[in-house]
């Protein structure tokens, strides 16, 4: 019961977090300054996600093969490879490094 109540509580809170902005603001538009901040939210969030994924808590999760694999994916994309292929090449590079 404790597990199921926890699952329901987290799921409901998650939905409420997403709903809070629209519920409070309604059709009021953000001021221009806030809109400029909002425009940068996607790249900032992605940069944070990459850092967290690669470093982990206390930077204990840093893994050379993983970092190299991500870099290879970036290079493949820069060389005009489609996104999915670039990521697969990166994953293969990391797997290859670990197999050495």
């Amino acid at each position, binding site marked *: 019961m*404790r*597990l199921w*109540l*926890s*699952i329901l*509580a*987290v799921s409901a809170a*998650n*939905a409420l*977090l*997403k*709903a*809070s*902005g*629209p*519920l409070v603001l*309604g*059709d009021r*538009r*953000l001021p221009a*300054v806030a*809109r*400029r*901040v*909002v*425009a*940068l*939210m*996607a*790249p*900032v*969030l*992605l*940069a*944070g*996600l*990459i850092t*967290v*994924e*690669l*470093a*982990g*808590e*206390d*930077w204990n999760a840093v*893994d050379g093969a993983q970092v190299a694999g*991500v870099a290879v*994916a*970036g290079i493949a994309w820069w060389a005009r490879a*489609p*996104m*999915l292929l*670039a*990521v697969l090449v*990166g*994953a*293969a*590079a990391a797997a290859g490094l*670990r*197999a050495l």
Partner: protein
Amino acid sequence: MSVRDELLLGARAAIGPAAATFALGVTFGAEAVAAGWGHAAPVVFSAIGISGSAQFSLLTTLSTGTALVAILSAVLINARYLVMGVALNDSLRGGRLWRAVQAQPLVDASFVVAHRGGGRFDVVRLLGATIPQWSCWVLGTLLGVLLQPEPELMEQLGVDVVFPAFFLLLVLEELHSLRALGAAALGALVAGGLLLVTEPGYALLAATAGAVVGVLPEREPAEREPVDREETR
């Protein structure tokens, strides 16, 4: 562009991140069964919670502390959705309740896929991007619950590269200006610094502070018109 086209465009752009979500779902399912959650709870949680960070947080903390602390931790880790919901609101239509409903498909990758540039979002594309994400997350969890693969196998296959690699490629597509580059660098710096003193979820929330670069007056031409992902590649 028709609603159907926008929906398909969002779904197509999210297929890559969804594949990564599938792999992460397998890991979540396997770890949840190992922690004694049984078979139904992890799958139901993935279906109604649809949040990797909150789900892994609850999985970790529920076994080590009180339920209240575990729930609060999981909710705080997702506080970035509060910020993202505010960001999304200007692009929504209708009354408050309908806007709140439209914000529900919000997940990290779909937020980025739906961004048309300049802080404008396409709600249909947001939904289209979340459909494969949700499906892969639930199916991945189910597979993890049933098969319970060893984490070492996933690492040997390089699966741990998939998520950060997709995020890297998505952020490269978002960097249309020096402001965006500066904001992303600041976000990464804040997240990296805070990882030394706090949990990843809080570091991620604080990273959104990098967007304050946006309060600086604009000195360069307006950002490029939004480009549909993959269409130019």
